Structure formats: structure tokens, C-alpha cells
């Protein structure tokens, strides 16, 4: 979900995604850079990501990942279910606080 969210903003290459993950979740989650690539390929195989070789900001060819239509749908679905879960959890906590 994290990867999908990042890629949904703009097409990015693997290293870019790794950096973004690092920035966003610096202190919260530690994502091993090594497990990023298997995850990307799995998402590509599922058809949620599309990949193409393009020139990167440094001038070298890099593989850019972007979200497909079904990836967008999947992201929305996951966001929705996450929101419901979060709501439910908050409800429980609110209940406890009262």
C-alpha cells in the first residue's frame, strides 16, 4: 500500500521509491531496501504497477514504475479498508477514554 501510494503521486524508479519511503517513514517504519525489489516485481506481475524504461533526472536510463487502473482501484480499496479499520480502532479507544 505504501508503494502504491508513493507511485500514485508520480512515476518513480526503484531508487526514488526507496528514498521516498525513507523520507516518509524515517522514524516510524524501517523498510529494508533489499525487499523493495521483490515487492515491486510482485506488484507488477499482479498488474497493479506498470514499468517502463525512461531517462532519469541524472540522464541515465532507469525503470520507472507507475500505477495502472487496477492498481488505482486496489489502492482505493486498501485505503478504504484501512480507514474502516482505523475508525474502528479509534472508536474503541474513544469508548475507553469516556
Amino acid at each position: 500500500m505504501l508503494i502504491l501510494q508513493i507511485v500514485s503521486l508520480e512515476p518513480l524508479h526503484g531508487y526514488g521509491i526507496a528514498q521516498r519511503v525513507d523520507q516518509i517513514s524515517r522514524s516510524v517504519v524501517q523498510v529494508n531496501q533489499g525487499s523493495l525489489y521483490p515487492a515491486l516485481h510482485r506488484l507488477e506481475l499482479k498488474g497493479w504497477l506498470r514499468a517502463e524504461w525512461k531517462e532519469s533526472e541524472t540522464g541515465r536510463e532507469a525503470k520507472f514504475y507507475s500505477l495502472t487502473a487496477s492498481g488505482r482501484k486496489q489502492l482505493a480499496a486498501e485505503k478504504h479498508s484501512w480507514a474502516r479499520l482505523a475508525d474502528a480502532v479509534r472508536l474503541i479507544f474513544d469508548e475507553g477514554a469516556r
Partner: protein
Amino acid sequence: MITQLVNWFRRKKLESGLERELHYHLDRRIIDLERSGLPTGEARRQALLELGGIAQIQEEVRDIWLTRWLRDFAYDLRLSTRSFLKTPSFSIAAVLSLVLGIGATTAIYSLVDQVLLHALPVRQAERIVLIDWRGDQVANGFGSWNLMSYPICRDLDKQKHLFEGVFCRALTTVNLSTGDDYRPAIAEIVSGNYFPVLGVEPAVGRVLATDDDGTPNTNPVAVLSYDFWEAQFGGAPDVVGRKVLVNRHPLTIIGVAASTFKGIDVGQVPSIWIPASMSEKAIPGFKDLLDRRTRWMQVLGRLNQGVTLQEAEAGLQPWFKAMLQQDTRRAGFPIITPERRREFLNSSLVLTAAPQGHSALRRRLLEPLWVLFAVTAVLLGLACLNVSGLFLARGSARDREIGTRLALGASRGRLGRQLLADSLLIALVGGLLGIAAAPIAVRTLIAFLPQGTAPTALHAGVDSRLLLFAFAASVAAGLLSGLAPAWQAGRRSLVSSLRERGGTAFGGVRLRKVIVTAQIALTLTLVVGAALFVRTLDALMAKGPGFTTSSLISFGIDSLRSGYSPPEGNRLIRRIDEAIRQSPITEASAIAQLPLLTGGSWNDPMTILADKRISTDRDVNLNSVTPGFFQTMGIRIIAGRNFDERDARAPGEPGQRSAIVNEAFVKRYLGGRSPLGVRICEGSGPDAKPNTEIVGVMSNFSYRGLREESEQAYFPFFEGEGAGGTFYVRVRGMPESFFPSLRAIVHGVDPALPMTDFRTLNEQVDRSLNSEHMLATLSGSFGTLALLLSLVGLYGVMSFVVTQRTREIGIRLALGAMRWSAIWLVLRDALTMILSGIGIGLPFVWALGRLVESQLYDVKPADPAAIAITIVLLCLAGLAAALIPAHRASCVNPTDALRVE
């Protein structure tokens, strides 16, 4: 799953892409780290550490691309290929066994599929049903199988609550011309709704519609078949509006049917479709289109969506019963006995699913083809067993390799899978080669098929269905032949296999013996089957048609279809007859109205007036012939006299009519009584007038085919209006050399007159026996193959056993055993296998006999001679195969054998 399979083929590209991707990551990271102040070497180390091992990531990503087991399987296949290439003789033997098995099965399946299973290329073929009349229709007719009249079809078509539509069709042969020369062609006479109900589209112009089939003889139109259009009009797009001549009557072409559609009879592909309203032009002399008592068409319908066969059948009965009642009150309904009337009123309509259409060929080949298919399936099983045996033999040679792999921690499942991959690979290669050989095999098979099958009707090509079947057969064969070795590998104890020295493992032998025993059992079944079919063919050939076939030529002339009127046609036939008889090449010549040995006949029940009036309880086969017929054919007249010129009086002339019946007729209906002078006539109703006198009795001979022994009655030819018939000419010498002179004689009378079925009687006999020929030849060759396969298996096992027991035999010989006792030691083993194989096989033989009983002639399904000969043959051949290793055993040198250890 599919993507993953595809990935396998582009894995090179994927690999390099991943590598570039990872390198890009690494390089960027190094640059970034250097910017933050780390030295180059340190930055590289840090970046690699963060990423955590490139090889590991690659491995993980590969698993995603291909899934684990697929990759393993691919590696297994690669290993198998390498090991097969290293042992070519083993691989060739295994592949060859399977090519034979898969090739034979695929070839037969090709015919089974085309003739028996293939659904018509029409919209929703599963809703097409055949409608047939069960009971007495009180009707005359022509054609064969499932016939009804045209008006009944029109009535059925009105039952819209059950059927989307009901159409009818009849096949006939017409003289078809596109302008210059005439040639016989198959025409399908159809009701106007034939194409719409089937849902067949035109390729050019339009197809027939209901309006085309209106008032008889008012709408001379026709639709051409795609193949005919291509062959005769070169696929010209402006064919619509042009004319073709059908029996010299012009019909306007309104369109060409879709290329995939070849009529509804797989064996008889029409060149032209003619609306029923024009049937008088297609069938000379036919005037009974609207007669309810003339049955000549097959009736098929398309069920409404959601209506089942049973519902439709039940739903038809009320209307049908009312129609029967109404029919009996109709003008022109014949006067019949109360009993027959009851039978008529008790008739019912029967529906059968007909998604494959209607075919006489299918009826004829149904059983032979299934029998052959079963035979090839058994042969394939046998080939699998053979490959199993080969694998087991190789397995024992590979014992140490497998033991080592087990010791290194390979799982037994993984090893079993490796062995399955081996056999699957062999099977797929076998299947591929089998498919490559299939077209040749199918072409050979088609040559065996009954006469009259249009060359376009069946094809020898490989289509997707056949590929699918061959693939399924290969995979099944691969699994089957890999099963025993894989099981064997699973059972092996690690310790023992490592402790044993290479080549001395005993484990596989028992399993291999079981396999050979099973092979012997299957072989017994196939060889006995072959013996039964060969004896059937022999018996039929020995019996013969009952007349002398040598130097005899026959050909058909149909003057009406060439535009002659009946009286003109009659004169034409007489002129040709005279010309042939005056020719010096002719020894004798005669005409029969209907040809012999073609499977068809003119048949009807008869009424006999002897002491009392009786009707025959089944149809009598009828024909009419010219006076010289019996001499020409060499058929003996046993009692009374032959026909002579007196009998051949022109139609309408007064005088006694005469007939000659055969011995079977006399035996069945006249008992011991003298037949001469007895009055008979065609038909069995009360209105039948027995006015024809039996003047002679002829010996029995075959009319429809060689198997039948039917009652026959022959009439003189020119009494009826004979305008066509089959000429039988006995020539002086080799018949083939007289074809041109006979053709010249006929064309001297009318150059445009086509001669049909121009061939020698020997050829005609062969043709009428072609399904027997097919069964005997094919089951014979399959039986031989089976025998070879199992002998090879037996030989293999016995050689192995001798190698295994070299030491034991050596010790025995050293202790003073005689050489023959060593031979006996081996032969006893072989004999045990052969005899138990025969024991297991005998019940199968019995079952097979029941299965093929209807295909046999003059042979019992459990024919003791066939079984005894087969058993002796199997024992002798088996012992011969075992004798070579046995001889080797007896030559073992005791000192050598002991020194081996």
C-alpha cells in the same frame, strides 16, 4: 499462471532488466553517499550492505516471475534433456515406442473425431435433433434411414412451441454442369428453412429461405457449396445470377454457402443445395413431393431454447396422434388390414440428439472405429509399459546417482518429480513426432473407408482438437510410464543403495517382471482380436459373392438424369446394350436395374399365394435384370427356367408376368413345396394382387453385401420402364484393359452420357469389404507391434536378470550344474511371466470378443482356434526372446563369474 509461463520464455530479458535496475539503484546510492562525505570504497560497501545481497534479491525476484515449482520443473526438464542426449540409444527406443502408440491413437482419434464426434459448424449445434417415425408409416419410399414425407416435415415445422424450426433434407446424385461437360455430383434437396434453422450464413449472395420453397416447380434456384464454387467458378464473385444445369434443367445460382459448412452428412458432401420445390428436376420421375405416403427425407429440427429432448418428444405426441387419425381418413390412404392399421395408429415420433447431423457413414463406422480406438489405446498402454520398463532399467543403472542425491538432502518427492519430468519429456517428444506422422497415417486410414466418401469429406490435417488430444495423450502416457519408476525411487532405502555396488541392485526386477506380465496380457488381447478379424475377412473372401467376379466389369448409366424422357432413355439403354453385345471384346453382357454389392437395394415386403395367401415377415430384396443376367454373372438356375425374350416384353403388353426367386426365399416361405408356378407380388397390403408367376429358382448370391443372406426376387428388366441401370459385362481377358473400349462404345451412342461407378467386380467386392479390410489390416499390424513391444520388454528383463545372477549361475556351474539347467533356470522365469500374462489376459479376451461380436462373420467371439494359435505363438515367440539371454547364462565361465566379485 499464464504470465508466469510466458515469463519462462523471456527470462533472459527479465534477468538483464533486473540487473540494470539494481545497478542503477546501487550507483545512485553510492553517488548520494559520496556526496554526504563518505570515501568511494566505503560508500560502495555501505550501499551494498543496505541493499542486502544482489544475488539474493535476484533469486527472490525470479521466484516471483516463475513460481517455485515451475522453475524447479524447468530445471528438471533441462537435466532430463541433457541425460537423454547422453544415452541416445535408450532415448530413441523409448521415444519410438511412444511415437508408435501416440501416433496410432492420434490417427484413429482423428477419424473418430471427424466421423463420430465433430459437431456441425452451425449455431448451437447441441439443440439440433433428429425426428424419426417408430412404427409402420404405411408408405413407400426410397433412400435409407430415418425417412419421412415432406408434408409431415411442414406440419412439424408449425410446432413452434417446441421447435425453432423443423427442416428436412434428402441426398441424391444429379448430373451437374456449369456449361460444358456433365458430371455426377451430390445434391442435397432441402426444405426452404434448412439454412435459417441451422444458422448457416452465405459466403456470397444469399442462402435459401422459406420463400424459395413454395409452389413446386416455380422457383428454379440453387445454392452452391463453397468448394464447388471455388473449383468450378474459380471463386468468381459475380456467380450470383448465373445458371447451372441440374439433369439438364437450368437453375439460377442465388449464392454460395459458408466455407466451413459441408452439409449435415460427414460422408457425403453436397456440391449444390436445391429447394424441395424443385425436387422433380433433381430426381427424374419423382412426382410425390406433396404425397404424405412417400417417405424419402430425413427430418431434423432445432429445439427451442430451454426445451429438452424429452419435453419435445412428449409435447409432440398429442398432435401426432391426431394427425395419424386424420391421415386414415384422408383421400388416397391405402386400404389396409385392421392389424396394420393398429400398428399405424400406435406409431410414435422419436427424437434423438443430432449435433453431428445425420450420416450413413457414421452408422457404418461407429463400431469399427470405436473398436480400433480401443485397440490403439491398448497399444498406447503397452508402449507406456515398455517405456516404464526401460526407465526402470535405466533407474537401476542410475542407482548411485540417485542415492547420492538423496544423501545430499534431496527430498524423495523432488526425485520422483525428476523421474516424472524424464518420462514427460520423452512422451512429449514422442507426441510431437506422433503428430508429425499423423497426417500420413490418417491419409492411409481414409483410403480404407467405404466407397462413396467424397475426398473432401474427411481431411488428414492436424487441427487444434487433434493437437489437444495428442497433447493429452502424451501427458497421460508420460505420467503412466513415469509412475512405476517414480514409485520405485520413492521406496528405495538410502543406506542400501549407497552400500550396494553399482549395477547389482535387485529392487527393480520384480516390478519389471510385473510390467512384462501385463504387457503379455495386453498383447494376448490384441493378437486374439486381430486373429478374429483376419478370420472374418478370410471367411467372407472364401465365401465370395456367389458369382464369378473375374473378367467382369460394371458401370452405371442414368439416362433420365441426362435429360432423356423415359421412352427415349429406354431406347438408349437398348442401343448401348446391343452395341456392347455385338462388340468382339464381350463374352456376355446384361443389365440390372440396381447395382450389386453397394450396400443398397430395392426392397419391399411381398405377398405369396401358394396353398394360402401369406405376406413375408420382412423385406425381400428385389431387382430387375435383362435375360442374359444369370449367365453373365455365372449364377446357376437350380430349378425352372431362366428369363428369355418372352419375359422382356414392353410395358403395357398383356401376358403373364414372371419372376425368379432365390433358394433362401424358397426355404423361408415355401418350405418343401415346389416353388414353380406360385404367384407372388410386391407389397403386403390387402390390395396387393399376386399376379407374377415364379418361373425359376436361382442359387443364393450377395446383393447388398457379402455378409447378408437375404431372400431375393428378380423380375425381367424391360417389363418396367427401364431408362437406366447397371451394365455387367464379362470380357475376354484382363478386365482393366477393356475400360477404354467400353467407354468408346457408350460414347459412340451418346458422347455426353456419364458412366458412373466404372470398375471391375473384383474391385467392387474389395470395396464392399473395406471396413472388414480396415479392421483386419489395422488390428493385425497393431497386434504385431504389440507382440514386438512385449518381446523387447521380455528380452530386456531376462538379460537384466542374467546379468544380475551371473555370480549365482557361475557358482552353480562350478558346483557341477549342467549347462541346460542354467538355460532352464532362465527359461522357467520367462515362462512364468508368459503364462501368468496369458492367464490374466484371457478374461480380457473374452470381454473383447463380446464387444466385437457384431463385426465378426462365421467366427465365434471366443474362437478356440484363434485363442490357441495366439497362445502358442506368444509362448514360442516369448521363449525365443528369452533364449538369447538364457544361452548367455549357459556360457558363463565359472571362474570369470567368481572373479568379477
